[in-house]
């Protein structure tokens, strides 16, 4: 645990400014959307809003869908850029602990920070929406926004993979793969669109935690230098 504490300490110092800015940006955007909802709520009947939501796929929080992706990608970029520039990753690999474990801990810390910047905004939506919508809405909000959170996690992991890879061709391949995969999560904005594959997405996110280990392995074998 003291190793994990040490990594948390280092990563917090490294990322606290950008995490703070992302959190503020997420909350501000959430508040803006809530004010927009208030405006709509004041001018239209509840049935009209509900109808446009179901029939026309107008979800008031849809513009928010890119923020988890931006947050995850930016955090992944900054965290692992600092970790790998000038071959600094050697410092990490030289520490007296398992190298894979060290990378996984860094990922978990980064993802925890990402969720900490993103989830408060969803909480703001959830609380605010209870003034206008029935309780069923909350469940839909979670289910509808879940793929966007997964998009943020994928963005983070592919950026970590990209940053730790030293070989340019592989970096391009990783970017294309990441783009292709993440794109699948943003095709439709209907509510509950991805509801049936949420368990699969969750499993994929957990499995993809191993992705950056590939770059780490390639580095330690001298394959990416």
């Amino acid at each position, binding site marked *: 645990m*003291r*190793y994990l*504490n*040490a990594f948390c*300490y*280092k990563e917090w*110092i*490294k990322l606290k400014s950008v995490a703070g800015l992302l959190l503020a940006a997420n909350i501000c955007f959430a508040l803006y959307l809530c004010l927009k909802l208030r405006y709509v709520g004041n001018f239209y009947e509840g049935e009209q809003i509900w109808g446009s939501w179901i029939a026309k796929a107008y979800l008031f929080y849809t513009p928010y869908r890119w923020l988890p992706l931006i947050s995850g990608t930016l955090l992944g970029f900054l965290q692992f850029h*600092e970790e790998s520039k*000038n*071959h*600094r990753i*050697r*410092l990490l*690999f*030289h*520490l*007296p*602990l*398992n190298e894979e474990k060290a990378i996984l801990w860094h990922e978990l810390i980064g993802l925890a920070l990402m969720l900490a910047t993103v989830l408060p905004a969803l909480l703001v939506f959830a609380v605010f929406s209870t003034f206008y919508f029935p309780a069923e809405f909350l469940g839909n909000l979670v289910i509808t926004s879940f793929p966007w959170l997964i998009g943020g996690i994928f963005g983070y992991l592919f950026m970590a993979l990209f940053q730790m890879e030293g070989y340019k061709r592989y970096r391009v391949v990783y970017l294309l793969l990441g783009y292709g995969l993440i794109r699948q999560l943003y095709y439709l904005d209907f509510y509950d669109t991805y509801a049936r594959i949420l368990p699969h997405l969750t499993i994929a996110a957990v499995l993809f935690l191993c992705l950056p280990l590939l770059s780490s392995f390639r*580095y*330690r*074998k*001298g394959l990416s*230098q």
Partner: protein
Amino acid sequence: MSDVILCEGLNHCYGSRQVLFDVSWSLPKGRICGLLGRNGAGKTTTINILNSFLTPTSGQCLLLGEPSHALSHRTKQQIGYLIEGHIQYSFLNVHQIERFYARFYEKWDPKIYFHLISKLDITPAQKIATMSCGQRSQVALGLILAQDPSLIIFDDYSMGLDPGYRRLFIDVIREYAAADHRSILLTSHIIQDLENLIDDCIIYDHGRVIARTDLHHFSGSYRKYHFNNPAELPESFDSATGTRIEKDKSGYSLNGYFTAETAADYLRARGLTPESLTPVPMTLEDAFIALTGKY
């Protein structure tokens, strides 16, 4: 176990280009050894293999008795490593970085670190990124020494340091190594700095070990003799004996493990005239260049 590092039959290729050829050497416990060679000689490749950042095409390295690619956590605790360019976490300040590393090493001694830091003209909150190269080198050195390692690997410790910081670095290393028979492997291109520091030297040339010897033996027995020859001579180098014949400004030089007599015999055996043979005084750097060639 008397050898803290043992390299056996190392060969390494980058694609089709072979950069290490059957490299074997050892570092006995308590010795300070300089791994020397020109740019591209294979030093960094060897250091990378030692630190398990490369897997050799064939051969192996043992560090403190364990294969370099599978070091236990306990053994890693005993190995300090200075990355070329004194790389550290530059977004941390001197206190934060000490607090970070202290949690990883059982024998961590902050006094050593803060003693070194106290000599620097820096503020406590100053980030490493804003320090000069010399100051960064002291921070990196302090962090390594605070681990209390029994083996330290310095990869090009002198890179970017002015003479004052180089001297300080060497003084600290020497004092530290003498205290408890620690073993040190270092690389540097500033050969003259090493004269009063290292016990042994291993010299690489184009991926091969061409000298593996006690420093005083090398600097005392590797000689350079100037001679003239009326006919044009081809430059030559025998990596097995370290003997080199090369052209200089006013004739030729014969470099090798020779006395005046054996040098004359060597020339006679090749049909050359040793009458004008004159010894040329050399520093360690001169001897290194004489062995590895000028260009």
